[in-house]
């Protein structure tokens, strides 16, 4: 079976500083992987590179998405091809209505795939369905994108967008941070509902508690730009109790 995402020996940096130092990873359809790791280890950098943010230099390696070279696609085409990033810090876009924004996004994706665009009524019906999943107030859709949203609302809004856009590969960058216990359950439930046999998810998190609700097939530990350990979900528990130090030492010993 062809992986949805295949990262091979990826080295990358920003402004002359190398951040990713050789990352390899394969995610198959139906799988969910988690990435954990200390602050500054390069998790968001990896997510940004997958989504195509400008300003990163690829030093070595390759990234295949459904067998195609992902890095040569523009950010919008990656999105249209089904790559979705739930941002660690979703930006505010004043003046742009949330519903309008999401409808535009969905129709771009649909157009790209040769599907008919949805009109306002069809879109509203769809989004009302999805919004229930996230237990969000419909009123948020009438407000400008993320403007004045609470931290938790922003994160849930990211998952709402994901639910509407139905990506093939979703990268969630600390979507659990800043959520209260109830919101965490709601988001986790939302993400679980979006898990399908033909899509894949990559969840970046610092906390075991998220992984109580969404069970990853694999947990990778990223330290200083390298995946130093990959294992099943038990690894998350171990990290929670022991921290990262031991794993760093372990990694050094092995290398």
């Amino acid at each position, binding site marked *: 079976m062809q992986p949805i995402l295949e990262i091979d020996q990826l080295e990358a940096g920003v402004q002359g500083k190398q951040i990713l130092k050789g990352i390899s990873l394969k995610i198959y359809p139906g799988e969910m992987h988690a990435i954990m790791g200390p602050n500054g280890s390069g998790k968001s950098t990896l997510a940004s590179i997958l989504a195509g*943010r400008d300003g990163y230099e690829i030093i070595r390696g390759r990234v295949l998405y459904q067998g195609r070279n992902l890095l040569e696609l523009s950010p919008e085409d990656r*999105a249209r091809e089904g790559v979705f990033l739930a941002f660690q810090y979703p930006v505010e876009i004043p003046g742009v209505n949330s519903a*309008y924004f*999401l409808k535009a996004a969905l129709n*771009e994706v649909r157009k790209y795939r040769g599907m008919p665009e949805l009109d306002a009524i069809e879109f509203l019906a769809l989004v009302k369905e999805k919004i229930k999943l996230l237990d969000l107030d419909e009123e948020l859709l009438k407000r400008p994108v993320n403007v004045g949203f609470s931290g938790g609302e922003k994160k849930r809004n990211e998952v709402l967008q994901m639910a509407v856009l139905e990506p093939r590969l979703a990268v969630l960058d600390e979507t659990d941070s800043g959520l209260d216990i109830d919101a965490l359950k709601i988001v986790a439930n939302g993400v679980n509902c979006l898990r399908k046999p033909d899509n894949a998810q990559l969840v970046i998190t610092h906390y075991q508690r998220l992984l109580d609700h969404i069970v990853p097939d694999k947990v990778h530990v990223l330290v200083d730009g390298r995946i130093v350990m990959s294992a099943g979900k038990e690894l998350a528990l171990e990290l929670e109790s022991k921290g990262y130090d031991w794993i760093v030492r372990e990694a050094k010993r092995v290398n």
Partner: protein
Amino acid sequence: MSANVPNIDQLVRSEYKYGFVSEIDTDSLPPGINEEVIREISARKGEPQFLLEWRLKAYRHWTTLKEPHWAKAVYPPIDYQAISYYAAPRSKARYSSMDEVDPELLKTFEKLGIPLSERARLAGVAVDAVMDSVSVATTFQKELEQYGIIFCSFSEAVRNHPDLVEKYLGSVVPYTDNFFASLNSAVFSDGSFCYIPKGVRCPMELSTYFRINAAKTGQFERTLIVADEGSRVSYLEGCTAPIRDENQLHAAVVELVALEGAEIKYSTVQNWYPGDREGRGGIYNFVTKRGVCKGRRSKISWTQVETGSAITWKYPSCVLLGEESVGEFYSVAVTNNRQQADTGTKMIHIGRNTRSTIVSKGISAGEGQNSYRGLVVMKKSAANARNFSQCDSLLIGDRCGAHTFPWIQVMNPTATVEHEATTSKIGEDQIFYCNQRGISRQDAVNMIVNGFCKEVFRELPMEFAVEAQKLLSVTLEGSVG
């Protein structure tokens, strides 16, 4: 990185769509200005004595004035003797029907999206089409006559309604008002005239479409709108010009008079040729627009979308004389490449309980410079008058500039003035966020800009709001930084 994010310079390639020149035989005066030229203009138009005298007074006054340079705009001195002050398509002075109009002229306006012939004219919009110095045609005149509405070229009004012209000409913008208004008063060629009788609600949009075609000429048109008691009118002007390397001067005057209970809504979609990316060519748009709310409960509302011109210098204003009268100013001004705009409004509150609202949205891209300049005056007599002003600036890229110069004078302690201002920038992170959701860079910018201008677009007549949005996106094409 390897992803092909288009860079700014590749993107800034927006074409000015209206830059063509029409092959029309033009009758023009040689360049230069003096009393002889003014007499000649007046004679060619067969004007009554009062008008010639008024022109001459304006000219003599103008010679005592200096070109103003307080605006935040930089340009080389204008040689007023190098400009031709009269250019007219050389054909019959008046047409008894549209069929007599030079087909090339009709074609020009058709190309601009303004069909004039009986068959094709725009539904629900009466159009006065002005090319260079003269009005070419006015549609729907007969239909409007049934309501007693006069809508015609200024020259026609001088011939057919000299009393109205004499009464109101210069009553809002006197010929002594300022350098460019004086010049206009001396040499103005044509423009639109509109009178709405008592109690009549004008059943359709009135509009004037201005087109500069001839080279090395200035355009000096004059518009006068009088709304009699209890009447209502919505008026729209649009303008374009060919692409030329030299700068051309456009110095217009617009006067609005609203009597008791009358309402005038004046909208502008200004798209004069802005010059090229290096700042070569383009129109100097130096315009004086003012309305007076003469009667109680009258209302004047200015809405402008300024996307064109190399330099824009205009401050559509309201003199709120009548008690409880209302003045409004809604503006979107865009400067891209080397464009400079210094625009805003004046709200002069004289009557009691007068109200005014100012909403100004400035968008700067490329190396554009955008200034809001506003004056709110509460005279001693303006008890309980209120003003609310909101000036927002949006920057696209790092090389442009936005400036705000709000002036407030309050001479009555019961008057209230509120002013809010914001400056924001379209950030790379906002664009990337949109990209990540499948929305292209250009669409992201359009979306953000349209959101920013929403409050102003809402004020435009429906069919023009859509036009304005499109125009804005063309103006900003590729201006992402």
